[in-house]
């Protein structure tokens, strides 16, 4: 028996080694500056393409943007006399140099082989750095990096706010201010609240919307001019009447209103946060494609529409890449199952466990429903959002409830789960401790690698606004 166990252990050893090396390094090839040559732009583009395709190997995958990459390679191409030299440098996200390499040659015929050699050198050095540097060993490494502060070990850690007046349904973060404090925005059904979070939550300003307007989504995007736009998706009388706010001084200032769009700022593939929009139709609650949105005054322009898979709406989807750089779409369906779709938007995996769960909803008048269900309104529930970290982790909230029956929902605890795509399924990597109350929303601050978890500590009553609390947990 002992021999059998030893044999099995020996057999398992190579498997664990393979797991440790299984996640390739994601590299983005930036510009290769060419000097002393004719057709400079053409050479630069050619060299960049050559290097990118030669870098793509078992251990390295070349991605399409710096935001998705673990390392960024840039370089120079110089000709002096009859000699050329290509010098490259690879840096991590913090602009720390990981490795340098160069190749040189004499004629144009030697250029392509030289780029191949350069790619080999860079790959070898980058993989060494990848293994050596823990910061790059996140996706699929199999290591339990996120344990001490986040996993449900029973140890209460992180930052915890005091009781905040108002049962907020939504949370989003804004800018980090020069004093190190962070802008935090929360939304109740009819109220937008602006806090600054440092040692404590400091209420800065709040605005109340008319009782006929219900906030169903709260999102922030930093504009190119550095201003923060706060997109408040509002439903009024069953129609979208969304608003854009900005912080001016210490006040919230309405910039645009009555916008007929659902808004969401989201980091697809864990990349930079972009604003997306979708419309409402006459028959469909979510109509048409989800598209990138840009604001100019009160005008919203849409571009780069994304086709949604089944159950895909602006609020239910996100995208991620596997280790080979293949893109996938994940959606949380109305029943709470997490579904992964391939590039052709065909379902390839579905969770056995339910995720999501939200008590936030909006209603649309539906006369035909009155005779059938007895309710004049159709209820459309929002759900916990799926977020993708720059490291490729898929974050999703999950609420459990003792009373979830039809449209009557009352959740009692929640948690955020971190999953990663292991090539065939989404596997849980970590989860936060369960909250003591309904987790209304969560926000992943990828600039600080922190999870902001909003929970309802007291539901609103007939004459009270209820109360919330915010906890912040570090994700290593």
């Amino acid at each position: 028996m002992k021999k059998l166990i030893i044999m099995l252990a020996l057999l398992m050893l190579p498997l664990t080694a393979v797991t440790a090396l299984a996640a390739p390094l994601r590299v983005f090839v930036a510009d290769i500056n060419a000097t002393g040559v004719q057709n400079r732009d053409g050479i630069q583009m050619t060299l960049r393409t050559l290097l990118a395709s030669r870098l793509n190997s078992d251990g390295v995958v070349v991605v399409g943007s710096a935001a998705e990459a673990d390392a960024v390679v840039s370089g120079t191409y110089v000709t002096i006399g009859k000699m050329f030299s290509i010098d490259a440098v690879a840096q991590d996200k913090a602009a720390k140099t990981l490795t340098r390499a160069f190749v040189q040659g004499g004629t144009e015929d030697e250029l392509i082989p030289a780029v191949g050699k350069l790619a080999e050198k860079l790959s070898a050095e980058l993989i060494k750095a990848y293994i050596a540097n823990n910061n790059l060993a996140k996706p699929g490494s199999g290591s339990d990096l996120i344990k001490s502060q986040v996993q449900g070990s029973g140890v209460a850690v992180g930052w915890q706010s005091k009781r905040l007046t108002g049962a907020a349904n939504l949370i989003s973060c804004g800018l980090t201010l020069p004093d190190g404090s962070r802008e935090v925005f929360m939304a109740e059904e009819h109220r937008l609240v602006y806090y600054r979070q440092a040692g404590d939550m400091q209420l800065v300003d709040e605005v109340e919307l008319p009782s006929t307007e219900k906030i169903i989504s709260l999102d922030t995007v930093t504009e190119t001019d550095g201003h923060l736009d706060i997109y408040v998706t509002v439903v009024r009388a069953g129609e979208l009447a969304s608003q854009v706010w900005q912080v001016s001084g210490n006040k919230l200032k309405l910039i645009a209103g009555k916008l007929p769009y659902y808004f969401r700022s989201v980091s697809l593939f864990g990349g930079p946060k972009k604003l997306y929009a979708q419309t409402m139709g006459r028959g469909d609650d979510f109509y048409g494609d989800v598209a990138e949105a840009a604001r100019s005054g009160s005008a919203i322009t849409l571009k780069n529409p994304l086709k949604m898979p089944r159950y895909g709406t602006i609020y239910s989807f996100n995208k991620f890449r596997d280790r080979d750089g293949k893109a996938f779409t994940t959606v949380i369906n109305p029943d709470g199952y997490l579904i992964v779709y391939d590039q052709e938007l065909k379902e390839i995996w579905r969770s056995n466990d339910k995720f999501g769960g939200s008590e936030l909803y909006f209603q649309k008048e539906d006369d035909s429903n009155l005779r059938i269900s007895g309710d004049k309104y159709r209820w459309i529930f929002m759900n916990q959002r799926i977020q993708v970290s720059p490291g490729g982790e898929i974050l999703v909230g999950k609420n459990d409830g003792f009373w979830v029956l039809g449209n009557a929902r009352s959740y009692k605890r929640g948690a955020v789960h971190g999953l990663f795509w292991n090539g065939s399924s989404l596997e849980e990597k970590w989860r936060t401790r369960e909250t003591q109350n309904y987790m209304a929303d969560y926000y992943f601050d990828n600039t600080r690698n922190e999870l902001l978890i909003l929970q309802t500590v007291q539901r609103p009553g007939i004459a009270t606004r209820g109360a919330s609390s915010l906890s912040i947990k570090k994700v290593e």
Partner: protein
Amino acid sequence: MNFKKTVAIVTAAGALAAISVPAMALENEFHGMYRAFAYLTNATSGGGGFNLVNGSQTDKYIEQRARIQYIAKASDDLKLVTHFELDTKFGGQNTSAGAAVSNKYPIGDGGALDADRISIETKNVYLDFNCPITGSNVKVGVQPFNDAYQGTFGNFDGSGVAISKKFNNFTGTYAYFTTANTGSGTAFPSYKTATDLNVLDAKFAVNKDITVGANYYNVLSGADSLFLNMIGLNAAAKIGPAAISASAGYQFGDSVTVGRKLSAFGGAVAAKVDAGPGKVNVAALYLSGDTAKAGSDNEGWQAIRSDVTYFTPANMWLITRNAATINSSTAIGGSSDITRGGRGIIGVFAGYDGAMDKIFYNANIGWAQVAEKQAAADAAIGTELNATVGYKLYSSLSVSATAAYAILGDGYGKTNVVLLNGANVAKSYDNPFLTNIQLNYTF
């Protein structure tokens, strides 16, 4: 092979088969409703009829309706929907087992002392699945159906098959219902005594703000050799602050009265316009009426059955029935027939509804007359004023109070002439009124 080995092999094979079959998790989904009305009125008594009285008689009673919907969901693509209804009048309704089916309580209800009655009714039982071959959605069984005419042809629960398929912004539907069978249980062939409804419906979302539709319905009746055709158009649009829906239909073919040809028209339009904290609602309805003259075509708008007609945008309680009503679901004229026996209707309605946090309210005014008075002296049904104010105790539980008052038109209000209900009275009917407290819980 001995018996033990055989058993072991069979057991192992069974176990293998069991683990080979993919696990199918059945989702249990429940929805439901409870609604109770406490009435003080001179118009209704909870039995389904509408009383026109001239003796200042007032009734007070309480009635309730509960609905339980259970959905057994095998997957996103396959579910069984069951929906049951329990109607009760407080104190019970004194009806015998032989009472007419049209009575709201043909076999009594559980409202009497000790509640010993079986009052459960079938509302829906149907299978709802997406066909893996065609990608179409199929519903088979007793299912809800809403017409494309805002309820004026028929919104009902019926036994049939509905197949729909979406192609981008286009949705096509074919539905078939057997709406009645007048033959006895052993009658053969049974289709000769059945009435069938066939529906072809097409909807196209032009953009996010405009949807247009076209449809063709026919009704085939083996018993009456009836062949009714109906073609129609409908649209829904959001124009500025207004959400507008409209429908129009033309009926031709055979009328219910054998030997007369049918030529009827109906049209309805409703608009909800954002204004202040709420909405202004306006609606207009026209359904052509039959002159009942021998030799002429029947120009009376036909419904699939008179008691399944609605016009919800009217928001009336007395001159047309309110879709929120339960057992007392009726209007002036004594039935839920919006056409008053084929006379048709012309009506205009307006109102305002809004909400202030947990308080909601509405107020409405409406006027209606029949399109053809036939033998009656006048066509006017009346003018109604009503108002409701309510409070949301919880997100799914509300309590509200309603008051409605109708000024009878000369079609019902005159004396010593033939009225729209066929009566000739020496003392005019009292104007009907209705007040109720409603408790409403849906989930």
